[in-house]
């Protein structure tokens, strides 16, 4: 037997105006799950504890709760000492029981055709990955778009895609899904990352539905404009000032006399190239100072992310081929990105590129940096969705930031700039940006640091604090250090 002290959210609508967290200590057997801890509390301490469960084996989706903030299935998640167990972020009925019905009712059902069309094996194989959903609503509980729009949500989109693929269904699911908010998804990947069945809703349902919508001419006009621009110029934004690529040479040698620590290609991406070139230049300085030898092929083009996220796939393969060939022909083993969106796209949407892709935060932590001066600044860090969830990069930027400023954490929520939402659904993007701004305000930080041009650009419009890139802040630290050493 093991003894566990846990904290559980309690709320009784009859007597409480808000919930409270109550500590309990229980004994359970080794390997016990969160559910068994709840049973132990219910059976021996307080029978009024309400929680839902049925199958006890991850198959019915009744028991989802948050453990230490993360949605999990109580029956599958191993119980840990000190854990905090709370209801999903949905309307709480009592204790850990939330209202599921409203969202379950939103999930569409098949409308059979008059006569049976038996689906073929390839159709079944396409549907199957979307079918293992147990409707636990973990995904719904974390979806930012649902908070600020009438979006039906990831579980419902998964179902619309599943129905769109099924020859037995008689409805036009594409038009339905557009009505139900298909274009409000910010591609934040939160739903997929909490799904106990690992259903890749953004990539396997939402982007696919958007591609179907594109075939039906339902792509948003603003997204069409972006696609036209990419087709015409190879870039997703227009030139308004000298670009990064225009300002640098093809080869940047590291400073100092030592041998370079590494050589890598640099994929700049449209935003850093054309909207925030100064930030990219800062990054080059930091890299050179830390012994990185950088090759910057000038014929690189848009990675294709704005097209993939919005379902406009016509010229995608041409872009991919061009980029791969550009870096392959330089004989590069590693290509570095500093845009979270480009990095996620090159890593996840390019099939087996002949080089490794690394985000700049990975590069700098892998090869190590010269310590900068510690600036007297309190900063908070915004996790870009495409870095945190798209690439699994959480610690590296924090490790760098802590070397130069004091870091105050805030919740990792989507700022609203992704998935074509900023251009296509500006009101939604603003509502999410506002929420982000409020969280920033709560931290009391002096500045906001991030590592994605979309986030940096968007958040800057929703906070009065300066928004800076990790590399720019590091560079400030170096400048301060240099200033001090000149004085000494």
């Amino acid at each position: 037997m093991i003894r566990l002290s846990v904290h559980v959210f309690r709320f009784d609508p009859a007597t409480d105006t808000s919930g409270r967290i109550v500590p309990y200590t229980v004994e359970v057997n080794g390997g016990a799950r969160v559910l068994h801890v709840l049973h132990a509390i219910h059976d021996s301490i307080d029978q009024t504890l309400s929680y839902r469960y049925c199958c006890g084996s991850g198959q019915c989706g009744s028991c989802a709760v948050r453990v230490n903030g993360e949605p999990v299935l109580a029956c599958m998640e191993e119980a840990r000492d000190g854990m905090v167990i709370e209801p999903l972020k949905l309307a709480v009925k009592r204790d850990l029981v939330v209202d599921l019905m409203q969202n379950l009712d939103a999930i569409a059902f098949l409308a059979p055709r008059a006569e049976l069309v038996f689906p073929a094996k390839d159709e079944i194989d396409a549907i199957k990955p979307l079918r293992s959903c147990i409707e636990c609503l973990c995904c719904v509980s974390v979806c930012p778009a649902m908070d600020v729009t009438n979006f039906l949500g990831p579980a419902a989109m998964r179902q619309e895609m599943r129905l769109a693929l099924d020859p037995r269904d008689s409805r036009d699911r594409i038009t339905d899904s557009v009505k139900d908010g298909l274009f409000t998804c910010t591609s934040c990947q939160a739903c997929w990352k909490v799904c106990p069945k690992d259903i890749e809703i953004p990539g396997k349902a939402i982007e696919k539905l958007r591609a179907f919508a594109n075939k039906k001419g339902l792509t948003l006009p603003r997204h069409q404009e972006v696609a036209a621009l990419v087709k015409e110029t190879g870039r997703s934004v227009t030139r308004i000032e000298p670009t990064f690529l225009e300002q640098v040479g093809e080869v940047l040698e590291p400073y100092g006399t030592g041998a370079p620590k590494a050589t890598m290609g640099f994929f700049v991406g449209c935003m850093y190239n054309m909207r925030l070139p100064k930030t990219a230049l800062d990054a080059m300085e930091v890299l050179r100072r830390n012994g990185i030898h950088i090759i910057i092929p000038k014929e690189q083009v848009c990675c294709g992310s704005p097209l993939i996220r919005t379902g406009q796939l016509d010229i995608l393969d041409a872009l991919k081929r061009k980029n791969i060939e550009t870096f392959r022909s330089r004989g590069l083993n590693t290509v570095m990105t500093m845009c979270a969106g480009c990095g996620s796209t090159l890593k996840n949407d390019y099939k087996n590129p002949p080089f490794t892709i690394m985000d700049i935060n990975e590069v700098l932590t892998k090869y190590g940096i010269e310590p900068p001066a510690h600036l007297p600044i309190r900063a908070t860090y915004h996790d870009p969705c495409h870095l945190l969830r798209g690439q699994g990069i959480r610690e590296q930027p924090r490790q760098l930031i802590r070397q130069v400023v004091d870091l105050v954490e805030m919740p990792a929520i989507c700022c609203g700039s992704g998935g074509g939402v900023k251009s296509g659904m500006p009101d939604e993007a603003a509502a999410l940006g506002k929420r982000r701004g409020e969280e920033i305000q709560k931290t009391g930080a002096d500045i906001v640091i991030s590592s994605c041009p979309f986030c940096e650009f968007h958040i800057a419009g929703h906070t009065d604090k300066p928004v800076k890139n990790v590399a720019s802040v590091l560079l400030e630290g170096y400048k301060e250090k240099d200033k001090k050493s000149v004085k000494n």
Partner: protein
Amino acid sequence: MAFSLVLCHLFMIVYTPQSNKMRADSDGMECHVLVIGSGGAGVRAAIEASAYGDVVLVSKTIVSKGGCTPMAEGGYNAVLREEDSCEIHFEDTMKGGAFLNDPELVKILVSESPQRMDDLILWGAVFDVTDDNKVAQRPFGGQRFPRTCYAGDRTGHEMMTTLVERLDGLPVDILTETTVIDLLKEGDRVVGAFALDDKGDSIVIKADSTILATGGGTRVFDISTNSASGTGDGYAIGYRAGAELIDMEMVQFHPTGAVFPYDARGRLVTEAVRSEGGILKNTLGERFMKQYDPERMELSTRDVVARAIATEINKGRGTKNGGVFLDVTHLPREQIEAKLPVMLEQFLKFGVDIRTEPMEVAPTAHHIMGGLRITPRGETTLPGLFACGEVAGGVHGANRLGGNALAETQVFGKRAGESAGRSEKRVRNVDLRQIEGQQERLSRFLNGSVNPATVARELQLAMWEGAGIFRNANDLRSTLAMVMHLPASDLKAVSARNLSECCTIQNMCLTASLICKSALLRPESRGAHVRTDICHAWDAQTSPFAHTYISHARQGIERRSHT
């Protein structure tokens, strides 16, 4: 201690028992057909009945999430190929059931199962298919043809999802998270049910016909595969209303339940693991099935494999955790990933990669073959009451073949739904004294003194010890005595919301007593029922006995006339 003990907590809460109240809207709740239970059988019945009049579906759980149907992994038996035949499926089922099955029900099962499969496919079920676009089938224990259709190892979930989607499109009123605690009667006739909602408020539902589809009840045993709703409510509710139950001693112990983690013991390891080629070994590394059934080996019937594993463990050839090894590491990784994804995922969560390490398994209480006696139309012995699915008896005899229960839910769910739907519309009267009686029962709980969880634990341990895989009269009698003495009427409900829990535990006690009594009524070993204290010369085919039966009015065992 086998269960979780609580050491301390910071403050004690003092409760004033709130009494429950009658729900305001409950007075007018009337329907043509009331369906109790939202598993495969209940939802199928509701779909069918909705063609004839207004239907109310009541379920303890959220509709798509309740019962054992969404947990069913392995598959659904249906004769779909030229080379197979309903006659062979019939013979396999009768043989597997030790010839205790009701042959007429079995004939219906095998002949209608393919049509019910067609319904599912029409409504959107995503079963696995072969390269030539036919529903794929896998071999299951005790069957001479691979006739078990499947959706990976989440077959029941696939069916449930499909059925609920179908139901969504129909005008059926659904009361979720509402527990039926008893049936209401007018004379002999069942005319509806008394239920408690999730707040503990009472609801009276009047109906022309009522269908019990509450599923099974192996939660009365310490180690069980069943969902939380597998507490035998329907057996107890039916019995209290006066219905007759048959073969309640016939409890299937599935050979392969997980043994770790201990608090999740009993969790099913699907038979599909063995049908995909999994092999059983004891700690000496011996493939021991060759001693018990050299011909069928791991794919022998469940009763045989379960007893083999139990014997190996009893003889000291089991693992530290009290199991034997079930090994698929010799199979290609892709096969494991494609055909057993749920198993792979569950074991990975529990720290075992079944692609590289063997699983540890031991028998677990899985299925109750007995239940309410039904006619081919799904009628019970009480007018106005129908039953289908696991709560009904007779289809599986003394041992159920894997894949036949899911088929049963569809075949008999449809039949019960249709019969109930076709039944006459009546003036609905409920004798108010019954409602007062229920209110009294509930207020006793509010003033009771015993923690229901403690009673449930005692019951489960006693049943596993005394009425498990190997039985004898002495143990059965002492278990029965112990069960009868549990303070089931003095349970304490700390709030109105806990009332249904108390009712459930009463139902568990009653169901357990029916199992023990029926086990004492059958003086032979037959199928899943093994009496170690009785030797007999006959085998299943020549046994002089047929069904055991039990009701308020009578109990006994039927004799067969052999020709």
